[in-house]
């Protein structure tokens, strides 16, 4: 934890964990486009399974906070490593915009997470742990609540637009982050690294685009 490389490795490891989380989140959300029931049962399982709720959820929360906190700390440190700035600098000549702006794309994603928590996570926690309703039943109406709650959030056009914009930032973050995490943990191979880079680009485009698609799908289907 004390040296630059240890910190960098921890950034990568928390990043890997978030990548994995995002993928499963995406798969479950995507099921809402295919089957209402499928989405409901998957959501109910994730929302009520004790291993996930008491085991993985705290890890996830820690992972997010750690990735954010360490990211900000390193950024501040790195800023200090060059106290006098260049009068003339052309950073675009040698490094991609994504790689240079991870802190900003990351912060944008975090702001979005705030909204996301407000929309979904806080009501979830309230329903389940404060009100003690672990049934997943929809209040007053026949059926399960998850799908309806999801749809309900994608009615307001501004909120949908905000969601979509956030995923653009997520995509930019991932375009660098995915392959960077492999480099950070010391994986480099002249045959596999190019594949990882391609895979990373694929992931960084497909997953956020998929989330955008889900938002638009539900918005359009309710017009």
């Amino acid at each position, binding site marked *: 934890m004390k040296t630059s490389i240890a910190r960098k490795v921890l950034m990568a490891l928390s990043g890997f964990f978030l990548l994995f989380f995002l993928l499963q989140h995406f798969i479950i959300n995507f099921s809402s486009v295919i089957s209402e029931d499928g989405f409901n049962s998957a959501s109910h399982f994730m929302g009520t399974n004790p291993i996930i709720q008491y085991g993985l959820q705290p890890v996830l929360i820690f992972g997010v906070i750690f990735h954010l906190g360490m990211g900000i700390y390193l950024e501040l440190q790195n800023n*200090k490593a060059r106290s006098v700035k*260049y009068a003339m600098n*052309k950073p675009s000549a040698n490094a991609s915009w994504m790689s240079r702006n991870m802190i900003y794309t990351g912060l944008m994603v975090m702001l979005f997470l705030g909204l996301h928590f407000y929309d979904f996570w806080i009501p979830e926690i309230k329903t389940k742990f404060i009100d003690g309703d672990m049934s997943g039943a929809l209040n007053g109406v026949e059926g399960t609540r998850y799908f309806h709650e999801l749809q309900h959030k994608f009615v307001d056009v501004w909120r949908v637009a905000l969601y979509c914009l956030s995923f653009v930032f997520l995509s930019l973050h991932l375009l660098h982050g995915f392959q*960077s995490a492999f480099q950070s943990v010391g994986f480099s191979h002249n045959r596999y690294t190019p594949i990882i880079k391609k895979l990373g680009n694929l992931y960084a485009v497909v997953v956020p685009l998929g989330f955008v698609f889900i938002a638009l799908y539900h918005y359009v289907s309710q017009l």
Partner: protein
Amino acid sequence: MSEKGMNLTLKIWRQKNATSKGKIETYKVADISEHMSFLEMMDVLNEQLINEGQEPIAFDHDCREGICGMCSLHINGEAHGPDRGVTTCQLHMRMFNDGDTIYIEPFRAKAFPVIKDLIIDRTAFDRIQHAGGFVSVNTSGNTQDANALPIPKADADKAFDAATCIGCGACVASCKNASAMLYVSAKVSQFSLLPQGKVEAKDRVLNMVEQMDKEGFGNCTNTGACEVECPKGISLENIARMNSEYLKASITKEA
């Protein structure tokens, strides 16, 4: 060969000494040949300044053939200027056009304080090497025969590629975080790829990274700017190798 004689405006960082405050000053040079190297253009400017009774601009340089690593300069926003695979002394004026304005600044990093004008102090690099950039063998002259230990050509070639680092500091200068990872990883890689270096590999990487951090360089965020600006094309692969060497060493090191 057509001489096109360029007129240039130069915006150069001037700073009297380490403690004084510096600023950018503007100079003009005329009739610069496209065949000149960048430092020869600086020579012309300095000759002009001396003739006018002004102090010439201090800059580091020595071999002027791209191998000693002494020349530095951040030229128009890039370490060693706009060309690729060259040091400032090998940069030629044909990369510029008549009427151009050129910014010339020292390599900037907290770990590379300015000594005067464009001259910086890079002894932090030396101190990192003192921490472990060597194989501990005395010059007795009776080590084993050089061919007693065959080394796969692929490993030897990779070690050589890493060993071609000239220690100029362009990697630090280009990195948005002023990180020295490419420099340090080049030496760590060279020795970790060779059987001679493996014996001390763990201590080497731990000690060199510790010293690197102490000097105040930033963290690596894998932007890859260092690799692009490195005049010797040292690969990012070396940083990955150092990361994994470091991980292995810190996990397996005994208390």
